[in-house]
């Protein structure tokens, strides 16, 4: 506990800000239903009501309470992006570590496969697949996770490439350890810092990607509140200087900024930018 406190004290203000933002979002996501005055898709007033009593942030294009939608949006959007990122890391991370540990043809094969996948623009690929399979949350998660895992694969591979040549891995090999042991006990713990940082960045990417998909009309199913489609639904208002669509976009931006700040700090701490002696 004291250690954590010490760590926090040494953090720059940007990182503290980021941590606070993330913590707030997580709390809101968890306790969302307790905080919201109305139901997720409950129509409680007429559309586009102004900010004020009853509806703190006004109502949306269907007369649903904006604040309620924002809070539920946190649950849904963060949840989906988080699960997707986890899945992407599971796929990409495991395959990337396998590629370096096994080496040889397995590495070649996976590398080529990833090259091919990466050569196709991710948005187009997502569009193609989502059109075949239809848009449902599990499919959305799976598709984005698979596409995103190619990037994770690349990183996991290059990070573990540097670790796999170290003597302690050689020692483990010469001891006769199996691939699984080498991956989980020898490589993974040492590859964690860059992977954790990348997790933050990929999370932001997924988050933005989902909102881009929503923008192109392949988002999360209604009436589920999702920040991406909330922006899209209300985007035209921007032209007239109405800030309602800024709220969900701001929510997206705030979280990504927060995560990026924390990742930045984390990278700085773990990247060994310190003295040799």
């Amino acid at each position, binding site marked *: 506990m004291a250690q954590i406190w010490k760590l926090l004290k040494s953090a720059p203000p940007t990182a503290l800000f980021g941590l606070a933002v993330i913590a707030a979002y997580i709390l809101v996501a968890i306790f969302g239903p307790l905080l919201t005055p109305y139901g997720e898709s409950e129509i409680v007033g007429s559309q586009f009501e102004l900010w004020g009593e009853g509806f703190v942030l006004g109502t949306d294009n269907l007369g649903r309470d904006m604040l309620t939608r924002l809070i539920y949006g946190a649950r849904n959007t963060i949840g989906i992006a988080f699960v997707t990122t986890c899945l992407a890391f599971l796929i990409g991370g495991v395959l990337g570590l396998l590629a370096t540990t096994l080496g040889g043809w397995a590495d070649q094969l996976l590398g080529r496969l990833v090259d091919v996948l990466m050569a196709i623009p991710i948005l187009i690929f997502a569009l193609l697949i989502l*059109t075949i399979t*239809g*848009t449902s949350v599990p499919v959305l998660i799976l598709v984005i996770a698979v596409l995103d895992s190619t990037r994770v694969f690349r990183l996991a591979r290059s990070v573990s490439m540097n670790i796999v040549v170290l003597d302690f891995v050689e020692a483990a090999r010469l001891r006769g350890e199996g691939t699984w042991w080498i991956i989980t006990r020898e490589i993974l713990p040492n590859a964690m810092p860059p992977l954790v940082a990348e997790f933050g960045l990929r999370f932001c990417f997924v988050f933005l990607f989902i909102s881009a998909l929503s923008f192109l009309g392949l988002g999360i199913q209604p009436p589920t509140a999702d920040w991406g489609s909330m922006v899209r639904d209300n985007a*035209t208002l921007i*032209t*007239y200087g109405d800030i309602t669509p800024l709220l969900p976009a701001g929510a997206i931006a705030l979280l990504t900024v927060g995560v990026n700040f924390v990742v930045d700090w984390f990278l700085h701490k773990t990247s060994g930018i310190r003295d040799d002696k």
Partner: protein
Amino acid sequence: MSEETRKTTGFTRREVLATGAAAGAIAAGLSIAPGIARAAPKKGGTLRLGIGHGSTTDTLDTATTTDLYMQVVGNACYNYLTEVSNSGELVPELAQSWDVTPDAKVWTIKLRKGVEFHNGKTMDSGDVVASINHHLGEDSKSAAKAILEPIAEVKADGKDTVVFTMKTGNADFPFILSDYHIGIMPAKDGKLIDPMSGVGCGGYIIENFEPGVRTTLKRNPNYWKTDRAHVDSAEVLSITDVTARTNALTTGEIDAMDKVDLKTAHLLARSKKVRLEEVSGTQHFTFAMRTDTDPFTDNNVRLALKYAVDREALVKTILLGHGVVGNDHPIGRSNQYHADDLPQRQYDPDKAKFHLKKAGLDSLKVDFSAADAAFAGAVDAGVLYKEHAAKAGIDINVVREPNDGYWSNVWLKKPFCAVYWGGRPTEDWMFSTAYADGVPWNDTYWKHDRFNKLLVEARGELDGSKRRGMYFEMQKIVSEEGGVVVPMFANYVMGVSNKVAHDKLGANWALDGFRAIERWWFA
């Protein structure tokens, strides 16, 4: 061609009687926002339109035209045999006059003389026959194939006359010839020279056609209509993103746009440079239930679902008031034979529950498929419907379908889905397209013997009052027993720069019945 000849070639009394278009009140749109009072149109300028449709796969072949973008372009570069005027009357265009046998089976159409195509060829009956045949025959991929199906034979009778023989009597046939698919194009040896060339008799010549991006048109110097085609040139841009379209209009990069974002229409209306134009026509949205699929086979279930929707709320929320409530049949108030005395169905959860009980159900759970491809706000409409129906014990699960492929994967396939209809100018056309037994677009798979019998009878009937009775009954049948919820009729809402002037707007379609380019001018 002088103003005078134009007048004499207009509607004659005999023709009006022949078509049964008494008083010419067909599809007489209610122009809600009156245009600038007609002053003498000025010539010149470049009219730039921003259209919320358009695709890279568009072609200039009117047979495959599907959306407003090519409809507007097509109406600029092609002429048709007939035209629906801005007051909703059917007027001759390339036809000069027509005659019909009393059984409404043989239509003889006299063509206007001395009209030239853009390529200099003089239009004659051979071109018309080839243009019609383009839509017929086994290999035709024309969307007008179905509506021209009743034609048994089309043949030229001399250079200036074309004779259509119908399989059964069809009193509305000249209306069909105004359909935007049936542009008249030049032919050689009985075949169209190139349906994708854009060469027609229209007021504007295609200068540059970039599918899905822009079309530039310049005025046809030899245009036969002297009181049309005011602007020197036109540019039609495809701007599918509504925000971009609105921005382009407010920043003066385009002079008019279709499909104003209703949510922000009131804000646009405040602009000093731009005005909203709105017409109410035949455009309507439906929730189609497949009557061949459970639970919709039971009319009580269908009635329950019809009572479970709050139409006023939908018009208010989805259309933001830019429309009127529907009465579960596809005939709009502006139509000639709209059943005004049919009581308006109201939102009534108790009646819905009552019908549910009659169907032997305590509660009902159905999937409702929607996508914004069906119509803007369809998904939101579904969400609202879900809220309304919940009060009647009906659980509607809104399934957001992908926009892509909506018309091939959802429509006509899913048991309950949202549908857009541009509407048709005549009752017969509308009913035969989507309600007659066995037609391909009968999206409710509905069969009703009495209705089908009336449909055929009314089609061959030239007596207006008899037809009125028949169409009233048919509307009642659809409303009470049909498989469709028609919650609302949507206005066409356009944004127009104050620099642009026009006469009364045609209500049959958006953008002055697709004719903005040749009808509008700069003030």
